[in-house]
């Protein structure tokens, strides 16, 4: 038994130290060289415009196009499925590290209450995110922070930037037919009160840091939008409020081939939306 306990204890100690070493080396290399959006932000947090939200925000603003063609300094911090619990600490970081900038928030991410452990990857970069993961194993078992898609994307984007990460295909005919034949009512904003409270909270936070916030709703495929039971009520309410700046991008005349699927625009759609958000409304 003594032999076993000695071996077992040694295994635990060496495993712990090894995981710490692997984490520190991997994180140091990736923090320095990766071109993944959130890593780029934590390496260089100063920009003039920021985009926040889920995959709909990712596919709404073409960062590369804005930087190179429109000559507007913007970083798209959107990420697939980003929940409010992760968006808020990142927004806090943007606010703390910047003044007099514009922050664009895509509102469909504000109703996602799922806890996503992927952002534990940035615990060491962000004290705000660290608070979010307080009393989870991510705090003391560092290597767990790399067990997610964000880590894989950081490796993948070691040699190239993800500033052009946007769907580059068009919605298929089969999916268009499926959407047309689907008559179910879709509820996108199940808790409107919570959504409004979060919008107000974000507005106040940004104002407190002298930053401007613009809320927007990325467009849905038109036939899908018709099925959204609560869309009109929510968007009318937001448009009627004088204390917030809100744009419903569904009003833009986008052709059907600007969509990649029912929820996301593609490169062509994103270019039009980028023009509108970063050029037209600013002018």
């Amino acid at each position, binding site marked *: *038994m*003594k032999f076993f306990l000695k*071996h*077992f204890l040694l*295994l635990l100690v060496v*495993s712990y130290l090894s995981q710490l070493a*692997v984490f520190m080396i991997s994180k140091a290399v990736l923090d320095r060289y990766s071109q993944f959006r959130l890593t780029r932000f934590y390496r260089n947090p100063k920009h003039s415009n920021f985009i926040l939200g889920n995959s709909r925000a990712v596919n709404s603003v073409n960062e590369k196009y804005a930087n190179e063609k429109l000559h507007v300094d913007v970083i798209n911090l959107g990420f697939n499925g980003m929940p409010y619990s992760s968006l808020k600490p990142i927004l806090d970081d943007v606010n703390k590290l910047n003044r007099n900038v514009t922050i664009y928030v895509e509102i469909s991410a504000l109703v996602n209450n799922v806890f996503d452990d992927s952002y534990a990857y940035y615990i060491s970069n962000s004290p705000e995110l660290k608070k979010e993961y307080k009393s989870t194993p991510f705090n003391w078992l560092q*290597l767990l922070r790399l067990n997610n898609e964000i880590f894989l994307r950081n490796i993948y984007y070691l040699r190239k930037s993800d500033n052009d990460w946007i769907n580059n295909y068009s919605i298929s005919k089969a999916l268009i037919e499926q959407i047309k034949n689907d008559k179910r009512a879709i509820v996108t904003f199940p808790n409107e009160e919570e959504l409004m409270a979060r919008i107000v909270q974000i507005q106040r936070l940004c104002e407190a840091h002298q930053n401007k916030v613009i809320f927007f709703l990325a467009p849905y495929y038109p036939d899908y939008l018709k099925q959204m039971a609560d869309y009109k009520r929510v968007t009318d309410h937001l448009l009627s409020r004088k204390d917030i700046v809100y744009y419903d991008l569904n009003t833009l005349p986008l052709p059907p081939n600007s969509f990649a699927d029912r929820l996301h625009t593609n490169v062509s759609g994103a270019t039009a939306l980028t023009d509108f958000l970063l050029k037209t409304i600013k002018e």
Partner: protein
Amino acid sequence: MLDYSFGIAIFNEKNEWKKKRLLVSAIIINLGVLFFFKYFNFFVDSANHLANEFGLSVNLPILNILLPVGISFYTFHSLSYTIDIYHEKLEPTKDFVAYASFVCFFPQLVAGPISRARDMLPKLVTPRKIDGELMVQGVSQIILGFFKKMVIADSLAVFIDRIYGSLHVSSDLSILFAVIFYSFQIYCDFSGYTDIALGLGKVFGITLKVNFNRPYFSKNFSEFWEKWHISLSSWLRDYLYIPLGGNRKGAVRTYFNLFITMLLGGLWHGASWNFVIWGGLHGTYLIIQRLVKIKLPVFLAILLTFSLTTLTWIFFRSPTFHDSWYILQRIFTMESYEILLIFAFLKLVYLVIALLILEIFFYNHFERINAKAFIINIILIIHLLMFCTYSGNGFIYFQF
């Protein structure tokens, strides 16, 4: 309790005919219970379908019952006990607790390996001492099992489930990779479970039967079945193939025996025609292998055996025969090549390569207690932390 009692009765009975009658009763009761829980609905459903095909309006009722966990495994455990006593390879134990421990030993209860009473009982009736070295080996094997299951099998499952769940919108290349990856998923899922079970056994001082021995490096199908789910294939060989006559009654009878054994081996996995086809294909491979004797270079022989085995897994994984047929059509036409989420896909490729390296260069590292084995354990733990999936996927073989 039934088999325990039958064992004593068979041992005490001197009349050969009565002895046989007792054995047949034990087999009928055991297989009857298994049939009732596992196959009743399947056969009723098939009978209803067949009757409808012939225009008959038959609607036999289907029972709404739960399948007892591990029934296929402990039925075979206890059957081997009774049959071995009949063949006088084993004396019945008077220690009921030891017998019950043999049938219900928790690491092997739900998914094997299927132990033989003559191997296990002596270990349970004799007092065991704490063996530190065996415990260290056990922990190493448990780590390997968790690596295979939680890192490789469950990561592959995410990709495979996505593709199998959306075959019509997936590219042909994605489907092909899902098919290939499934070979590794089922191997890592099942052999991972076995490693955990064997490791736990070692921690308790009991060495269980080895169940896998690098099956995908087999050069032919006979070898594959000597290395894949060894406890089941040897059970079927000893208690089905050999009693049927084995290879002692001419070539045609040998082929028939092989085919029937594999067919029933397929059906043992579950009440579905897909499992029957899977078993039937393996039976056919074994027959063809005996008929066509071509000597291939080792690498080609391994590749051919692996490829043909992978094709059979399509039937094992697909929910319906229609899906299996659709997949076969897609992977043999190959017209679309996109792979979505390339970084997640590359992670899977890396993990499969890591598995192959482990199997080729560090096979059975857990049997040794030295610096090399220690370092491999550390590397496996690091991989567990970095890549394991917390999806809570059950073990595939739990359903059997």
